[in-house]
């Protein structure tokens, strides 16, 4: 913002100076409209030169802004030049020369002469400023020195002309400076390298334009060198202005003449130059895309499109290769089915993986598309491997159908382009993978989070019952659930369940199951009835292929009476005096059947617990744990383990069981959640009471 203000204010100041000097000049001119051979001429010229110099800097700002489009700058110069030519030619035809001009002293003449001066000098200055910009365009070496020298010599020429007019003997100085100016004009005119960077079409236009302009500059120069009315007016306004005008016209004539010839010599290579710059800009576009386009398919489309530009091919397509299967990602200017068929045929024919660019010339390929065998003939077909870190990720195909074969340059460009493309594609792939991994990770975390909130934070404490629970989640949440419900002060309800499936979907079902058991346990005490109701609710909400196994029971803490029912869950184990018994009442999984079959196939089981009896509830994660030989831990090992530790406290037993299970399957990842719930019946009171 600050720099902008500075620019604005300096711009304003320049303009103020220009207006000021113009006003002074005008006032002066009203007093001395024409020059004579006196010192007044020198004051006159000093005023004029300083006005021109200030004007030059003002106009330079305008021309500098047009630098991005040199052709339009040239066009502006041409237009002004044409106007000058038109004015000069027209006025010299209409008006005769004025005789005894030194004695003319009318206001009308003064006004006209000022107008002529303003038009000619401002146009000339614009032309000079424009040429200066063109001169500096695309220059690697600092070139201001030569041009500034030229401006100085222009000024000296003009001043010497004025002096020579006053002191006739000094004409040789004027001539000398004119010659030096001409030499410098020629030197400065060779700065035309910007032409090379124009497109072919622009070059043709410039060729046409410069030929006319050079001619017009020549005419203007010639016209004002002769004596005619304009020359007369300018000369009488100031001798130096006349010289300045002549010199700029000469400069224009030489400069645009050289532009004409340079452009002419550039034309034959213009097409090739366009091609090169197309390649470069395609590469730049691609490297921009690498950072902007993360979508694999979209990137593929950009690559095939750019391929056609880079190597002048008719069609291009991109194939990725992963674990020996290839996939067509994108096509440009060829049918998807065609490209797919051609790719398959070629990849079968050639030796893969390719390690360098392969060219097939005059190739005809038969492809079967929808029961129809078609033959494709290619003048030239280039296959470039897409390699990243020595690994082949796919192929880029470029084909010419009718035109000529690919030349070496085109193949090289394609090779370089393919290297870029391979990196870009690999990049996009890696990003896609990491996004997928991150999403999976966050999904897993969400599932684990849900599960940990669903499971009870602590086991209930009762005098009559030791309770222990152990839950070890698998990497991918398995959907195990257990819970306890204090029904009233002397009854404890419990549930263990296993939801089919894994991950986030299983954890949602778990949440639903928890809700069902929590609410039903408050209203239904009979385990069988409760499971029937739970099945009703779940069959309506579960997917056809999902189900839940569950075991629900109620322990009477007064009497030690246990009543439970099983819905497809693994049996309950009871360990009594070291002997383990598997209790398995009939009952099918929740959500398996919505008809009455569920209701008629479930039964309650009742047992009386004795002192130190242990109840073991578990999920199949325990018994189905596998070792490296795919052997399962199994019920037998499980039951023996319980017998061995049955005298311990339940916390220790559950820990022992987990220890053994993890030892058994130590080399294999835990596949499913492991859940254990253990109860040990302790009715000392009763025993003491009975004794």
């Amino acid at each position, binding site marked *: 913002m600050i720099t902008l203000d500075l620019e604005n204010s300096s711009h304003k100041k320049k303009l103020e100076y220009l207006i000021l000097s113009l006003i002074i000049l005008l006032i002066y001119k009203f007093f001395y409209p024409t020059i004579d051979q006196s010192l007044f001429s020198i004051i006159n010229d000093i005023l004029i030169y300083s006005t021109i110099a200030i004007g030059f800097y003002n106009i330079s700002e305008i021309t500098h802004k047009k630098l991005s489009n040199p052709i339009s700058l040239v066009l502006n110069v041409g237009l002004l030049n044409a106007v000058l030519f038109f004015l000069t030619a027209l006025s010299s035809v209409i008006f005769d020369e004025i005789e005894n001009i030194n004695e003319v002293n009318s206001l009308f003449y003064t006004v006209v002469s000022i107008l002529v001066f303003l038009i000619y000098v401002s146009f000339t200055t614009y032309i000079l400023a424009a040429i200066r910009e063109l001169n500096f365009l695309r220059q690697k070496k600092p070139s201001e020195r030569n041009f500034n020298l030229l401006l100085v010599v222009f000024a000296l020429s003009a001043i010497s002309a004025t002096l020579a007019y006053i002191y006739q003997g000094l004409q040789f100085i004027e001539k000398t400076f004119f010659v030096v100016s001409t030499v410098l004009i020629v030197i400065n005119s060779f700065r035309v390298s910007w032409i090379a960077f124009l497109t072919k079409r622009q070059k043709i236009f410039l060729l046409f334009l410069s030929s006319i302009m050079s001619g017009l500059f020549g005419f203007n120069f010639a016209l004002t060198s002769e004596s005619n009315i304009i020359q007369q007016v300018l000369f009488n306004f100031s001798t130096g202005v006349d010289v300045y005008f002549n010199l700029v016209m000469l400069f224009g004539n030489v400069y645009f003449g050289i532009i004409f010839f340079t452009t002419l010599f550039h034309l034959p290579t213009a097409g090739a130059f366009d091609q090169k710059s197309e390649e470069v800009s395609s590469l730049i576009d691609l490297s921009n895309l690498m950072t902007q386009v993360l979508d694999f398919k979209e990137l593929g489309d950009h690559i095939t499109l750019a391929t056609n530009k880079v190597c002048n091919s008719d069609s291009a397509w991109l194939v990725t290769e992963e674990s020996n299967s290839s996939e067509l990602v994108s096509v440009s200017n060829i049918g998807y089915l065609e490209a797919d068929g051609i790719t398959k045929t070629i990849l079968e024919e050639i030796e893969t993986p390719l390690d360098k660019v392969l060219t097939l010339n005059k190739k005809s390929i038969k492809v079967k598309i929808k029961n129809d065998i078609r033959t494709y003939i290619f003048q030239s077909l280039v296959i470039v491997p897409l390699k990243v870190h020595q690994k082949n990720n796919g192929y880029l195909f470029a084909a010419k159908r009718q035109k000529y074969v690919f030349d070496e340059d085109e193949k090289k460009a394609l090779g370089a382009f393919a290297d870029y493309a391979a990196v870009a594609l690999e990049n996009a792939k890696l990003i896609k993978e990491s996004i997928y991994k991150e999403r999976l990770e966050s999904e897993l975390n969400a599932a684990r989070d849900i599960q940990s909130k669903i499971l009870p934070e602590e086991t209930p404490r009762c005098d009559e019952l030791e309770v222990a629970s152990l839950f070890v989640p698998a990497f991918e949440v398995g959907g195990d659930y257990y819970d306890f419900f204090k029904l009233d002060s002397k009854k404890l309800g419990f549930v263990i369940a296993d939801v089919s*499936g894994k991950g986030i979907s299983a954890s949602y079902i778990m949440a639903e199951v928890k809700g069902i058991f929590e609410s039903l346990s408050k209203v239904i005490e009979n385990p069988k009835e409760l499971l029937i109701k739970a099945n009703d609710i779940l069959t309506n909400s579960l997917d056809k*292929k999902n189900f839940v196994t569950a075991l629900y029971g109620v322990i009477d803490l007064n009497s030690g009476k246990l009543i439970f029912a099983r819905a*497809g*869950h693994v049996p309950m184990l009871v360990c009594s005096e070291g002997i383990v018994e598997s209790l*398995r009442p009939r009952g*099918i999984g929740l959500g398996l*059947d919505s008809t009455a*079959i569920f209701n008629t*196939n479930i039964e309650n089981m009742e047992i009386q617990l004795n002192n130190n009896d242990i109840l073991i509830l578990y999920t199949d994660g325990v018994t189905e744990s596998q070792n490296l030989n*795919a052997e399962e831990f199994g019920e037998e090992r499980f039951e023996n383990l319980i017998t061995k530790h049955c005298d311990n406290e339940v916390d220790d037993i559950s820990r022992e069981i987990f220890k053994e299970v993890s030892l058994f399957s130590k080399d294999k990842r835990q596949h499913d959640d492991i859940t254990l719930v253990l109860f040990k019946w302790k009715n000392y009171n009763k025993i003491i009471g009975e004794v």
Partner: protein
Amino acid sequence: MADFNVSSREQGQICIIDVKGYLDAHTAPDLENEFNKLIDNQQYKVVVNFDELNYISSAGLGVFMAYVETMREHKGDIKFSSLKDDVYNIFDLLGFPVLYEFYDNDEEAIFKFNQ
């Protein structure tokens, strides 16, 4: 992981699907494809031969649950045959034998279909 393989053969109007190896969440889609093919061909009488199946997970069981209704609606069924004891035990625990028919071999299952 252990492999899974599914193939089907026709015996008259009845289709027999042979399942081999490990049927779990990763391999279940293969079996689903097989069932989809049968439904496309309007074959609704299916016997699944478990002779060479070593393991079935809950996701594997879910496949049968997902398709049995369609089969039964079209007067067909999914019947199971030749299960190993431990595989049968998994079905049994869940109460499948109440809902599906299990046979010792294909012939019995086919015979039942033809009755």
